[in-house]
């Protein structure tokens, strides 16, 4: 995927010359966060999507949850939860997983409005997600569908961070050990019972803070680029 190779800032300037209006234009006008800034000086948006499946091409977003990290703290006042009307019947398998009934998700707002709100929240911030590929590919596909272009984005994957750490420490990676629940347990974080996009976004944000504090002896010396 092109996105993964080229610098996101370059991609942004390229798009700025081609997108003249709409939500994507607004998003592009805010510079991407400075990768050299310190963790505590930068803002992060922990993000979680619930989807009907794993394919960004054929599956749909059901709901979006996010929370903000500012000055190294999770700020609950900036939480958000957006139920999305998927405009399609749900596949049964996923309904069970997410405990979302057909009726509930139909109460959601339209896909295009949801993405527009989300872009406002992401602008100028680094995104954090667990197993970020879902969020990255779905967001990219959404923008392509709605605005004709992909989305320049800096995104931190807590799953990848955990995997790298384990590899560095020459640990064998057991199946399931990289799951959000198990990683949280490892860092002594409390157990959450709820399973929805917002609770998962908060859970991911907490995990990020825990992992970041173990990255360096002095968390204040960590920079955004250390995690990308």
């Amino acid at each position, binding site marked *: 995927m092109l996105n993964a190779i080229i610098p996101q800032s370059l991609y942004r300037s390229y798009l700025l010359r081609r997108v003249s209006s709409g939500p994507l234009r607004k998003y592009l006008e805010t510079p991407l966060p400075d990768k050299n800034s310190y963790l505590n000086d930068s803002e992060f948006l922990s993000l979680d999507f619930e989807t009907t499946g794993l394919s960004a091409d054929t599956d749909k977003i059901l709901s979006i949850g996010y929370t903000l990290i500012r000055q190294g703290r999770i700020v609950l*006042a900036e939480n958000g939860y957006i139920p999305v009307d998927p405009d399609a019947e749900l596949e049964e398998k996923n309904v069970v997983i997410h405990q979302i009934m057909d009726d509930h998700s139909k109460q959601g707002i339209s896909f295009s409005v949801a993405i527009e709100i989300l872009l406002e929240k992401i602008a100028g911030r680094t995104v954090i997600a667990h197993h970020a590929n879902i969020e990255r590919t779905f967001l990219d596909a959404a923008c392509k569908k709605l605005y004709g272009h992909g989305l320049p984005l800096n995104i931190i994957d807590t799953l990848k961070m955990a995997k790298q750490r384990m590899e560095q420490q020459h640990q064998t990676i057991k199946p399931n050990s990289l799951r959000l629940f198990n990683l949280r347990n490892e860092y*002594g974080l409390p157990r959450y019972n709820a399973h929805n996009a917002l609770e998962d976004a908060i859970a991911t944000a907490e995990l990020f*803070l825990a992992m970041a504090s173990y990255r360096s002896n002095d968390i204040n010396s960590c920079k955004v680029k250390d995690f990308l």
Partner: protein
Amino acid sequence: MEIEQLEIRDYLSQCAPLNKLDDALLDQITHALEISYIRRGKELLTVGEDNQTLYLIRSGALAVYDAENNLQGQFTEGDWAGYRSVMAGGKVSMSIRAMEDSLLYMIPGSLFKQLIEQYDFFKTYFSRQKPERLRGAILDIRDSREDILAVTQVKDLVHGEPLIVEESTSLRELAKLMTEGGYTTAMVVSNKRLTGIVNDRSFCTKLAYRELSLDDPIIKIMATHPLTIPANSMGSDALLTMAEYNIRRLPVVDGDRLLGVITATDLIRRGSHNTIYLINEIYRAKNIAELRNLSRHLPATLVSLVHNGMNSYDIGHAISSIGKAIVRRMIYFAEKQLGPAPIDYAWIVAGSMARNEQTGLSDQDNALILPNEYDEQTHGKYFEDLSRIVCDGLNDCGYVYCPGDVMATNKKWRQPVKVWQQYFNKWIDEPEPMALMYSSIFFDLVCVYGDKTLLDDVQKNILNKTRNNTIFLSLLSANALSFKPPIGLFRNFVLEETGSEQKALDLKKRGVMPIIDLARVYALSAGIDAVNTRERLEAASKTGVLSHEGMEDLRDALEFISTIRLRHQAAQISKGEKADNYVPPEQLPSLERRHLKDAFDVVRTMQLVLAQRY
């Protein structure tokens, strides 16, 4: 999905003192909340810096150090930190370090100060010291369905004007007064002082039975020296008094003034438990089999008392009263079988029943005190048989044989006054481990049947001998300190193997026993004759051997631990399990765990004080 639905908000709503706030405020706090993570060993607050944040530990643990880096305390999940500096305007005077990786919920100092100004309970929670926190917790833990009798004074339960008559009134006159006025009870006075009580039944049992004349004065049928109850006593006290003495009416007095009579019916109509019914049934039981059936109601009675929000002191009294009623009825059966006793005797119970601290069926500890004219040749057989019948019967009822054989069936514990006096002299003058073991039984005695003066004769000299007897008291103290509260140096719980897979707190051996033992030492060192632990503590503080604060702290710790224990037992009984004393701490809400630690801290402190004294 609103912020109000977050699991974090649920968590906040269970943490004291936030649990007392209304929904709108909880939403406001959740909204203002920030979350941070701190690694083990890192400093959260440093002496001298400015802090404007209140911290709630969601997971992990923090330690507080003073300026000299001495550990001042450890705090864990559900505890608060940083409030002292916020309340002091921001200046941090103690440093706080993470002992474990911790997830912290942060509440802005401005919001915290606003809550403190607005809500007294909020302010009290954060300003009071640990023992005070415990006191508040006792009130919180009680079921809100507080028994009406426990909160209502008897003067408010008395209704209508009492019928008061002079001693010289004739039976004819009284019958007329009672019938016309619709009274079932009359109080008899002489010089305005209550001297007796007559009820409608007295006419039947006394007048008719004794073939008295209607012109005789009522003094001939009245019950003399009636028990009375002060007007400001609680309804539950009245009920317990009735249960204890098996009476159904109690005159209510305010100083010398007679206010009226309170009846069992008045109380039962108001209250919701069945202790008094059960005791009544026990006194009516026709044989041991019936008694055995009635004793099976004891667990259910405990459950209903706990559910009614009675405090553990009252529950101990109620359950022990039932036990004593069973003992008395059993003795009645034995006497009926063997004929009247050839000489007077005192049936003594020891241990928890004597202290009025039973929570259910337990081992029986009992003894017989006989007058000095007791002659084994002549009387021995009778009392051996009596003891056998009573102890076997109690065992049948679930008060199983004492494993240490402290029972009246054991000849050693069926002796005349002079022998008992020798026993006590030896225990006090030459205390040895065996004697100290007996002390926990034989210094907690009451007479439940027979001639109480026999016990008085035995005990007369005990308190004089123990008071200020340093050698005896120091050994007794050492014995009292053998069971430590189940809490480690860093406020961690010390759990015991329970026979099942789960480790648990032993709330009897390590919870209430250390307090009972402390109270006994205070009582014996100050010559206090009370036997109940709370009454001993209260009396001890009046004589000065125990400070007033120490008394309150221990009394509250006892009440809190006992309440947790009783609720655990009631829950087990409700589930059809056998009640025990093992409480796995993870079964308790975090707040109660913390208060339990406070209670254990109190006991530990008071044990240290005692250890330094002797």
